[in-house]
């Protein structure tokens, strides 16, 4: 009897598997080992960032500086519908299938051989969600037979990779309270719980407390949660675990209860240190004069032990942030050769304009160098990693112009959209350089003449973002992390808003709002190739190998935060058209070797 039961179970599993397949492409299971080894395996992309460290470096070299000129499109897939706006997604690739997310919380599975759709999932978004900063999604995660992604109504969904059917759906936050979700989830191994799926959170200015949640990927059940703001309790296995920091240590009064620190860009993981690294957003309220103290851990990087959700170390890039230098930028683990030693380092290019190198085992500060020009808010960073603030450049307290008149304006660099915003940089194991997509802009800040908030008279601040130079805002830079030296720079008229990819073939790829996917020489910055996709690019390129050929793909569709904010920058981007598609490229047979 027992044996018969088992046989039946196997048979029904098989039946399900077969029923779900509707194409020659057969999706196979992804193991946690596949994810950890993602960077080394060129045949698939099963993590956001081409490996858990997020280096966005591919060991493939079939495509190189010589044959890149022969790179041509294979197919283009339209997301369709009336919904366009910003497409910031990085696709995943497994066994001939591409999994790609789009604006308005949509996802597609596409047969790479033909460019045909296998399935589409369209999240039904409730009325009453008010995402602050466009309706983007940055990508999915994959494990076993499921793909996972977060939706704008602050939920995480697990879909059957073969059919696109919902397996489970869990709430990350309450969208009615202002929570949202746009980042790619992160899958990490643990001894205690097996693989876990980690998500950050995002939302508006107020009432949001940053948090990292870890869930069981099979069921969606919460395993642990870790708030980023001191004074809040974490949980582990359904019970309270420990408090983050010490209540009121760096926040006066009760503002820590609504403090900010959203982990809206997700995180990375380093298999060596077995730590997950998350960046945290700016504190609330925006007006720093109302919240004396460092306000930990806002505008910081934190390292979390995935076994229990404890914070192992934290590093605050902008303590007492008053400029909206939302420190969420990705922290990329890499081994740094310096003075004959190998240092277990990690690097992050902060919205505040400095490129930080830290010891990734303990968060100790190694170096910080500017990666954009003419920074005004700080004159530098001291030997402990603390900024040397420029007090005259801190935005004033609107209360000090109680007459309700427009106060004096100050000009701060970088602007509030950051020297580098969400768009991920890449680290080349070939050149040991980081390739940073940055923007050279500043902001005018003044105390706003009278405004109203929820029906009541209020004093706020006005901001407007301004280019620093006439001829360009965007700037892709190659930076040597051991010295901070900028090796080369590519200047772009419009602000750069897309991620970077670098390869063992000596190429650096990035897209521009003007619609070009471009490839550069990793050593000289020379532009080797470009292709016009017909709409702006604000996403991260990928490359993989299939049937002996190297492919490149990019999601296109202009949008994101830049067109929402405008200012003088709007003039540079106002003519750009929206869109929504994936483009796939390869070198046609016979041309690869030339």
């Amino acid at each position: 009897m027992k044996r018969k039961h088992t046989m039946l179970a196997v048979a029904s599993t098989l039946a399900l598997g077969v029923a779900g397949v509707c194409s020659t492409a057969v999706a196979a299971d992804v193991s946690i080992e596949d994810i950890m080894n993602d960077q080394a395996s060129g045949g698939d992309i099963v993590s956001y960032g081409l490996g858990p460290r997020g280096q966005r470096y591919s060991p493939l070299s079939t495509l190189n500086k010589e044959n890149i000129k022969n790179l041509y499109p294979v197919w283009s897939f339209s997301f369709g519908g009336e919904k366009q706006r910003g497409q910031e997604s990085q696709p995943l690739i497994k066994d001939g299938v591409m999994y790609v997310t789009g604006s308005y919380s949509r996802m597609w599975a596409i047969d790479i051989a033909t460019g045909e759709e296998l399935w589409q999932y369209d999240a039904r978004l409730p009325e009453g969600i008010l995402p602050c900063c466009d309706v983007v999604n940055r990508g999915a995660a994959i494990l076993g037979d499921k793909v996972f992604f977060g939706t704008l109504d602050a939920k995480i969904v697990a879909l059957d990779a073969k059919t696109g059917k919902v397996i489970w759906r869990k709430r990350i936050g309450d969208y009615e309270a202002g929570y949202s979700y746009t980042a790619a989830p992160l899958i990490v191994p643990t001894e205690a719980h097996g693989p876990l799926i980690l998500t950050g959170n995002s939302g508006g200015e107020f009432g949001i407390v940053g948090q990292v949640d870890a869930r069981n990927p099979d069921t969606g059940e919460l395993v642990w949660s870790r708030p980023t703001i001191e004074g809040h309790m974490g949980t582990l296995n359904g019970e309270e675990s420990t408090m983050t920091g010490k209540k009121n240590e760096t926040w006066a009064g009760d503002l820590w209860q609504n403090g900010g620190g959203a982990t809206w860009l997700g995180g990375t993981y380093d298999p060596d240190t077995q730590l997950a690294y998350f960046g945290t957003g700016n504190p609330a309220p925006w007006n720093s004069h109302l919240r004396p103290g460092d306000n930990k851990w806002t505008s910081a990087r934190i390292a979390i032990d995935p076994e229990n959700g404890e914070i192992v170390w934290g590093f605050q890039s902008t303590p007492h942030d008053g400029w909206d230098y939302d420190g969420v930028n990705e922290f990329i683990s890499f081994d740094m050769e310096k003075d004959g030693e190998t240092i277990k380092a990690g690097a992050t290019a902060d919205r505040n304009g400095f490129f930080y190198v830290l010891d990734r085992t303990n968060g100790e500060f190694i170096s910080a160098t500017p990666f954009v020009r003419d920074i005004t808010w700080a004159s530098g960073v001291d030997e402990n990693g603390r900024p040397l603030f420029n007090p005259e450049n801190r935005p004033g307290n609107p209360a000090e112009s109680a007459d309700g008149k427009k106060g004096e304006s100050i000009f701060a660099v970088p602007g509030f959209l950051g020297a580098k915003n969400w768009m991920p940089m890449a680290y080349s194991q070939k050149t040991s350089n980081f390739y940073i997509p940055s923007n050279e802009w500043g902001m005018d800040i003044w105390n706003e003449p009278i405004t109203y908030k929820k029906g009541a008279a209020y004093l706020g601040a006005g901001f407007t973002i301004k280019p620093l130079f006439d001829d360009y805002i965007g700037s892709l830079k190659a930076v040597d992390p051991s010295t901070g030296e900028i090796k080369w720079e590519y200047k772009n008229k419009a602000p750069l808003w897309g991620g970077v990819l670098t390869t063992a073939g000596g190429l650096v790829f990035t897209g521009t709002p003007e619609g070009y996917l471009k490839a550069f020489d990793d050593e000289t910055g020379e532009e080797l190739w470009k292709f016009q996709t017909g709409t702006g690019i604000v996403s991260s390129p990928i490359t993989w190998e299939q049937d002996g050929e190297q492919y490149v793909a990019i999601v296109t569709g202009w949008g994101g935060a830049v067109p929402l904010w405008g200012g003088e920058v709007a003039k540079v981007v106002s003519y750009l058209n929206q869109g929504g598609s994936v483009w796939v490229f390869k070198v046609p047979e016979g041309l690869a070797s030339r």
Partner: protein
Amino acid sequence: MSYRIPGLSQTLRCLSALSLLAAGLSSPALQARPVDDVVDSGKLVVFAYSDYAPYSWQDESGEAQGIDVEIGRRFGESLGVEVEFLIRGADENLDDDLRVNIWKGDLVHGKYADVMMHVPYDREVDIRNELAVLTSPYFQEQMALIVNRDMLPTVETFGRFVSNPIAVEVDTAGDFFLSNAFRGQLLQSIRRGRTFADAQRLYTSTEVGALMGARAQMEWVAHESPDIDSDIVQPPMPGIVRTGWPIGIAVKHDSRDLGYALGDVLTEMIDSGDMKELYARYGVEWLPADLQ
């Protein structure tokens, strides 16, 4: 008492809400499309803030409630149309609210309302937001405190709150005032509620003896908690942005005629005493808009 609403054209001012109804809702006097559109569609979409008792909120069944909601229903009755309420939270400032709720819509569904309730009537805001029209002030807003007399027998100045806690809804005008007051001396005393209801609970549970907000909100709290011996006080507020301001409605720039028609409804409610009676049902004293 006659209460006049500025911004109304002479012709339209003659046209009371009642005569509008009598004219069979297709008066040739109304040339512009928006009122006709609203009437043709049989539905008026009214925006009001969520979590904003006694003006507007949603009860447990999702039904819109409050003073502004009742006024919105009156708009519908006068035009002979159904009313749909669009209830959303406040964005960072009024300019954002006008964009999202009156002229552009939200990012996801692109939805906006025909009329927005509870819009401060301010010339500068009106000029700065050229795609919205602020009109028809119908009420005077003020800032105030409610204090529990058993806990705080006298509150003559805010000095009382250097050592006594005071509740307020986070990131509101009251919070802004308290956070800045006396060079931060009250910072340790502020107990912030994430919503107004949370701040109200801090007061009604007697965890704190005072709450700050709009006067009508304070009167509502007193009305809802008759067991507490409460007093509404307005001590000097040095550095407050404004102690009082008029509240009106807003419509999209191409819907001015709708604004005029709804302004007539407000005038009629004020002149007939219905407005005063409506506010009184929520324990609030109606004050006419003070346009200096």
